[in-house]
């Protein structure tokens, strides 16, 4: 077990707090580069882009953490971390890290932190990132703020992590003043991804895992990829079409699917449809579902409750269709059509079909 930093009693509301001496050794901003089956989850690059801003504000280094087997994909991940502006990469390469398991990953991460002492550690709020973050934070006895939507450095150089609370009705800013590292997770597509600079490289610090298979209780028997089970890939779709209670009947979901097919888009829905069992949870857009950031989002018959807004307002362009001119969705959509989704959706499908075939002929 790690030596938990003894937290001194909190000092009321002092505006700037002097960091306890033993925590001053914690420096630099770390981003966990999430590597699975040879692929890096794009959220890692989004976090490195964001981490660069924080590191610059603090005047410290930005470092990536890559855990994985000794393999080409791991080398590639390390190289790319530099392209996304990491100054240094900490890597643990071990066959035990080939498939994600909590035990070896937690050990690798906590050992790295205890040895190299980062002041900030960011992870993607993916199923892997959250599984790991909770275990690491508890082991290190430090603070962890989940699902942040905004990260900033405040006057006394602490991380001010802002996240939605109460279903997105409010935002709150959370500080970890008396423990290090300050940990946070960020959901995919919340932060923008910068452009990679292929010419960059940097220092790689390699550490060993120090574990053997027999010490790990949990075994991976199999991995069933989503490509085999038709899971929705909403988060990274360029165009998303979604329906809400305005669809009125479960069979009208087909109208959403039809439009999505013509556009080559992903389709999704608002929470009530999942609760009613009309669509599966992997297609839910919103605070308790997926955050999307497409170039175009078409929301049909969705009222736009705050819970939905939080997950969709990052879209470049939002077209909302609703029969109620006072629906809150029109407060954050860019364009609106006041009308019945059941009539507008097929009309859009038809009009797009025509427009695209004309375009194809012309092109």
């Amino acid at each position, binding site marked *: 077990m790690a030596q938990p930093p003894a*937290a001194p009693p*909190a000092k009321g509301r002092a505006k700037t707090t002097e960091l306890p001496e033993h925590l001053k050794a914690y420096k630099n901003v770390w981003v966990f580069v*999430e590597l*699975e089956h040879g*692929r890096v*989850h794009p959220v890692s690059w989004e976090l490195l882009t964001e981490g660069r801003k924080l590191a610059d504000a603090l005047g410290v280094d930005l470092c990536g953490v890559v855990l994985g087997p000794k393999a080409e994909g791991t080398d590639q991940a390390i190289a790319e971390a530099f392209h996304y502006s990491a100054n240094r990469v900490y890597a643990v390469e071990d066959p035990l890290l080939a498939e*994600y398991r*909590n*035990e070896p990953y*937690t050990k690798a991460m906590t050992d790295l932190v205890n040895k190299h002492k980062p002041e900030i550690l960011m992870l993607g709020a*993916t199923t892997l990132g*959250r599984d790991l*973050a909770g*275990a690491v*934070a*508890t082991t290190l*006895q*430090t*603070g*962890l703020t*989940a699902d942040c939507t905004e990260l900033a450095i405040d006057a006394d150089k602490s991380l*001010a992590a802002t996240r939605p609370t*109460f279903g*997105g*009705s*409010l935002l*709150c*800013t*959370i500080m*970890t*003043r008396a423990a290090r590292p300050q940990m946070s997770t960020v959901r995919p597509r919340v932060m923008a991804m910068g452009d990679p600079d292929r010419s960059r490289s940097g220092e790689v610090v390699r550490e060993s895992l120090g574990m053997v298979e027999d010490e790990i209780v*949990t075994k*991976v*028997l199999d*991995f069933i990829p*989503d490509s085999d089970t038709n899971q929705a890939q909403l988060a990274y779709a*360029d*165009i998303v079409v979604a329906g809400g209670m305005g669809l009125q009947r479960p069979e009208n979901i087909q109208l959403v699917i039809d439009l999505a097919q013509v*556009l*080559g888009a992903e389709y999704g829905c608002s929470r009530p449809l999942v609760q009613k069992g009309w669509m*599966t949870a992997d297609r839910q857009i919103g*605070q*308790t579902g997926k955050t999307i950031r497409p*170039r*175009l989002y078409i929301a049909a018959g969705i009222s736009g*409750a705050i*819970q939905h807004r939080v997950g969709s307002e990052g879209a*470049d362009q939002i*077209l909302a269709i609703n029969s109620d001119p006072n629906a809150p*969705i*029109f407060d*954050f959509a860019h*364009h*609106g*059509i*006041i009308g019945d989704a059941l*009539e507008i959706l097929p*009309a859009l499908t038809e009009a*797009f079909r025509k427009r*695209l075939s004309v375009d194809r002929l012309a092109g």
Partner: protein
Amino acid sequence: MSQGPNMVVCIKQVPDSAQISVHPVTNTIMRQGVPTIINPYDLFALEAALRLRDQLGGKVTVLTMGPPMAVSALRKALGHGADEAILLSDRFFAGADTLATSYALTSAIQKLDSQHPVDLVFTGKQTIDGDTAQVGPGIARRMGLNQLTYVSAIPSIDLEAREICVHRRAEGGVQVLKTKLPCLITMLEASNEMRRGSLPDVLRSERAEIITWNAEAAGVEDLGKCGMKGSPTKVSKVFAPQPRAEKAKMIKADDGSPASLATAAIETMLAEDAGLLKVMAPQSTSA
């Protein structure tokens, strides 16, 4: 000693976020009148435990940390069919973040474990008011339980061999994992559907004595690790999101027909982002 697994399900009482609103003038949450519910994600955990009990026997204890009013969440859980309920309530627990919460819950589970060894601890994947998804992993870490998060199914459990096999949602697929009991499971949403308790269950739940433990009764060793004191994270401010200045521009068409509106909408969207055409209908690129 019963043959089936001894299970503890951690639940949390939360305000129903669907019915929450921000006071337009003071910008604070209007808690008054906002109904409280069992965190919806916890219901999947409770149902998973109840199903195992139906299959194998054993016992399901629901545990929550919260103010005295959280008793109503426990009663609901009993109404769904849980066997026993324990409320952890003490002013020392107030203001706890996830780290301090997992500490207090762990103390209570360890106490239960000392009375009768606990085989499985269940939590929801996250709460809807905090969304942190950390209390489960926190408990697992503190108790040294094998941690199984985002579990969508429990295809097999072997109490003799003390082995359990689960499906775990991972990025891009499902992991099939095998591990040893005792373990901590956080259930994925939609992995099952909460049963409706029978009338006798509901009547029993309303009459049941709810065991209440304060910090001492729960066997908490270090009060400094509880509540506000034991929480490394502090909320520095709470504020309402900035409303966007502009409302949606409404698309109009002369005859107001769906077809005209659709055409007008398409032209408006393409005028804003002509590049959309390139990402549309990828099946056409091969043509």
